């Protein structure tokens, strides 16, 4: 009973911190917009091909840009609470609807890439932990070095050169082929074919991390007392590794995966740009090119929101699953 109360208390504290973080991100976002040279009125004026000073003042009044900083900040936060992140002048659309329209593509890419990295990483880690001096173990070391040192956009371009130009099995860009007709399965197959290269590229960063951590924790767990006990009871090696040890070596890997959310967003921007994947990353890239401040700040806020909520959920899930995680922080 005490545990449940404690869990509730920790949850409340964590949620409280998350809200404070979000407000801090909003304030930062707004200050950036405020400090940047040129404001919304200038953007509109530019789009209109230049207008006179009086009209510029008129626009500033209409958008409330002549109000004091704090008033504007308050209004901005109020708007965000009503899911209004502003208006993109480049796309002539609401920032929120632009983000939501690009979200599915990014989620598909990010989730499949993370799953791939986790599954392959844990498999590689477990196998190489059983034979620390085997070929596979050296391969994991090599993979870790490559994953850390190769710029992800370069890996992506190499993939394209090899698997789209030299051996043309995968498409060069985009998410679907507009000429393909047919039912659900034909469409799904088409998207899957487009997904393969970006997915592998994005997972390459994290594969290295996960396989190395999985190997390290697995080796530690295999040397622990309860594994020796299990072996002494006469269980086979296989049973010990997959039934006993694996379960306990997963929790650090999952913790790490949760902490990678911010890196995932960064990686997605580069990978999506390389493969012209129509997700949030390319949207961010295009909004930077177009100097579309409300849109880029909207994406920044949205990504921070995703990272904060994701971290919160990982943290709470681990507390539920693993009683060793506890105390403060």
């Amino acid at each position, binding site marked *: 009973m005490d545990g449940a109360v404690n869990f509730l208390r920790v949850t409340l504290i964590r949620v409280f911190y998350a809200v404070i973080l979000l407000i801090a991100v909003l304030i930062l976002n707004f200050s950036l917009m405020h400090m940047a040279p040129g404001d919304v009125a200038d953007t509109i004026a530019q789009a209109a091909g230049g207008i006179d000073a009086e009209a510029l003042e008129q626009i500033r009044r209409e958008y409330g840009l002549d109000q004091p900083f704090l008033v504007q900040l308050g209004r901005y936060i109020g708007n965000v609470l009503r899911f209004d992140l502003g208006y993109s002048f480049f796309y002539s659309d609401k920032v929120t609807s632009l983000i939501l329209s690009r979200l599915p593509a990014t989620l598909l890419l990010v989730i499949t890439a993370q799953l791939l990295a986790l599954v392959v990483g844990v498999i590689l880690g477990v196998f190489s932990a059983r034979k620390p001096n085997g070929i596979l173990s050296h391969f994991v070391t090599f993979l870790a070095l490559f994953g850390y*040192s190769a710029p992800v956009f370069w890996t992506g371009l190499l993939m394209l050169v090899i698997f789209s130009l030299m051996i043309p099995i995968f498409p060069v860009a985009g998410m679907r082929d507009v000429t393909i007709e047919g039912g659900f399965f034909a469409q799904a197959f088409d998207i899957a074919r487009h997904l393969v290269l970006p997915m592998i590229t994005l997972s390459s960063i994290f594969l290295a991390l996960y396989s190395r951590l999985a190997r390290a924790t697995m080796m530690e767990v295999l040397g622990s007392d309860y594994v020796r006990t299990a072996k002494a009871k006469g269980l086979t090696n296989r049973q010990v590794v997959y039934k006993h040890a694996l379960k306990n070596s997963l929790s650090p890997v999952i913790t790490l995966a949760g902490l990678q959310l911010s890196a995932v967003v960064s990686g997605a921007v580069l990978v999506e740009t390389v493969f012209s994947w129509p997700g949030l990353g390319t949207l961010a890239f295009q909004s930077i090119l177009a100097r579309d401040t409300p849109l880029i700040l909207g994406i920044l806020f949205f990504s921070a929101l995703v*990272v904060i909520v994701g971290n919160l959920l990982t943290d709470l899930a681990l507390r539920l699953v693993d009683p060793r995680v506890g105390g403060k922080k």
Partner: protein
Amino acid sequence: MSDPVTVLEEEIEKARHPFTEAWEMFRRNHAALVALVVLTGVVIMAIIGPALYGRDPYDMVWTPFTRPGENWDFILGTDYLGRDLLAMIISGTRVSIIIGLAAAFVSVFIGVTVGALVGFYRGWVEEVLMRFTEFFQVLPTLLFSMVIVALFGASLPMIVLAIGVVSWTAVARITRAEFLRIRELEYVTASRASGARNGKLMFRVILPNALPPIIVQSALMVGSAILFEAGLAFLGLTDPNVVSWGQIIGSNRTYFLDASFTVTIPGVAIFVTVLCISLVGDGLNDALNPKLRAR
């Protein structure tokens, strides 16, 4: 019976200088040694390469997209504007290395300061700075620096700042952990008892002993800062008048279906450099980590 003082002096005589000892450990790591040699070559190239090679990287010297080996005057070929790719890579070395070092310096400076304060003080200082660190941990790093560079201009100092400001949290975490460990040790209590002030305790007593893991992390930071700059430059967020490795890839990307070498070759330069930095970091870890020395 020999005089204890002379015994002590003999012992001191026998003890080698810490640097010698560290170098011995480093030397045993062959990969790190090779990487150090390569890295020295890269740095020398950054310093005297442009003068030695002599060809202006901004000059349009030949037909665009001349392939490597097609014309021996341009060993690595030419880019989409007909500029000599080798000249661009050589002069890009300088920019990439300088940005890497400067950005790493900024992030180590912020990281050590914040980490030291959080690890040393308890109470509200710790609480506030922990939230501050957490705040920077949840900001998607690349997006945030993209925003900074896009809003405030793509000058080199701004790029250095944008990279440094988003990547210090790892350094802060390590510094904090070391400070938490060391502040409980006896010699810290001893110097506190002999009247050392907080500032002296932090930076003269604890920090020197916390340095080894911080040095290793700083070396790795240079590598990740180079990667980071390459990423920004690839996205076009760089000074268009300054050639860097990432910028070569970014500006040639549109044409890579016809001339893939213009993006693959500069990538090799980034890859090799960052790889060598992380191998040297590994070697430094062997050399400076006393726990490993017992082996």
